[in-house]
């Protein structure tokens, strides 16, 4: 049930991120969620789109180093304590989170969505299944 995130290497210099967004804009790719991890030397952009395979090929053609990473997208109620309750489940299931960021969605049903990168996505899925969580598929992403 995991979805594909695009991870893109960004050189640490002015204009690099703009080059990335230009390629996305020119190719009419809607970035549904983004997060930027940076060190003092380089950055990694993490992006969710509707068609990840198509977008990663477009980026490679434009001389970016980009790869696909499996991540979990989980729906939570957009209210106080929403994330906290979800993380209870993660903690109980002993799933370690490497990083996480929010996915805004298009404002349907008062829901928020969180993207989780865990070490072993398949194992985490097995541990989280049947705990009443709504784990999104790639198709769900396109519809929210």
């Amino acid at each position: 049930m995991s979805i594909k995130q695009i991870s893109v290497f960004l050189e640490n210099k002015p204009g690099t991120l703009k080059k990335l967004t230009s390629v996305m804009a020119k190719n009419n790719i809607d970035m549904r969620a983004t997060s930027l991890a940076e060190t003092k030397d380089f950055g990694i952009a993490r992006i969710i789109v509707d068609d990840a395979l198509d977008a990663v090929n477009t980026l490679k053609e434009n001389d970016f180093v980009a790869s696909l990473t499996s991540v979990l997208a989980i729906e939570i109620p957009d209210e106080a304590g929403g994330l906290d309750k979800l993380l209870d489940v993660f903690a109980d299931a002993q799933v370690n989170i490497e990083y996480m960021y929010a996915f805004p969605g298009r404002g349907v049903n008062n829901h928020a969505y969180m993207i989780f990168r865990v070490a072993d996505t398949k194992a985490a899925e097995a541990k989280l299944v049947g705990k009443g969580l709504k784990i999104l598929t790639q198709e769900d992403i396109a519809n929210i």
Partner: protein
Amino acid sequence: MERYYQKEIECAPLEELRSIQTEKLKKQVQHVWDNVPYYRKKMEEKGVKPEDIQSVDDLGKLPFLSKKDLRDAYPYGLLGKPLKDCVRIQSTSGTTGKRVVAFYTQHDIDLWEDCCARAITAAGGTDEDVCQVSYGYGLFTGGPGLNGGSHKVGCLTIPTSSGNTDRQIMFINDLSATILCCTPSYAAYLAERFKELGYGPNDISLKAGIFGAEAWSEEMRADIEKTLGIKAYDIYGLTELSGPGVAFECSAQGGMHINEDHFIAEIIDPDTEEVLPEGSQGELVFTAIDKEAFPMIRYRTRDICKLSREKCSCGRTLIKMAKPMGRSDDMLIIRGVNVFPSQIETVLLNNGYAANYQIVVDRVNNTDTLDVQVEMTPEMFTDNVGEVEEHQKKLSEGLKSMLGIKAKVSLLAPKSIARSEGKAVRVIDKRKI
């Protein structure tokens, strides 16, 4: 089976080689004494006369020539033949000072092309082969030298010269080229382009490559061989001595055989100018004993390497020179430590990066800084910051242990370093000293 272009010379017994060298050296010293006043003056200053040179053992009595002499004598001061006997000039790029202009008689061209033919044959070339020469043609010796050698071997020669990479690939594919001659950095670029276009090593008709004119590492050789599915052979030369082909690699791929019937090699201590015993590392010095128009005697190449007369599996008896660590011109002195770009290349390739790099040296607050900039590759990239940093740290530690000094590692976007079609620009030295 090992192939030879001129077996009687390439595999001659040592005594025979020495007697050829003695004969030619005596003649050459007389020629220079009679026809090159610039060098005669140097001999007189040192108190040496042609009759003092009775065998190769007397070579050490003769004065050296250096790059400075070439500058001082520019353009005609070292000419050994009247211009009417000369048929060609070749010239260096002049990136490290004033350009060198070398003169050739037809005899000089012939012996140069023979040397290149030996290199192509040693790489397995025959008249059945299709040899693409992607070295620059023109003043640069690479194109004309290998072109001539390829003709002598009888290969079908494709004189693409350098540049226009997709056209190079089209010719290799359409005419099933089997041998590629170019600089190693251009070979790496061609290999990268082939890969991008989806060609695997078995899809490429090439079987051998002859790559020279710049320092390159064993790791880069392995990379090029794997990607193109070829054997990659090194070739060595200098415009001052003719061009590529002064020395060439055989099937053993472990050092280059020097064409000793035309060039006598010595290794000296670059500081004391003392001749060092075989096997010592030092500056390579060459005497061209057969060239008429530009007869260089004891020319200091500034290349640092070793010589070895150990028996070679290919059957050649010609002495071998190790791959030079780099021209002493390329050597950087950073915080007092000698650094060769080829050492940095070795570390990069050993750590999984590609040979697309640039070395930036600067001086900040009176301290030299070394920044090794290398392009990120799909193989070295993950979505995990920690892992990428870990790779970067390992590279940095590798550089420290190879060079003895600390280097900053900068990861650049792919294709951000300009690809070279000739000699790659590896070093940017911003220090104003």
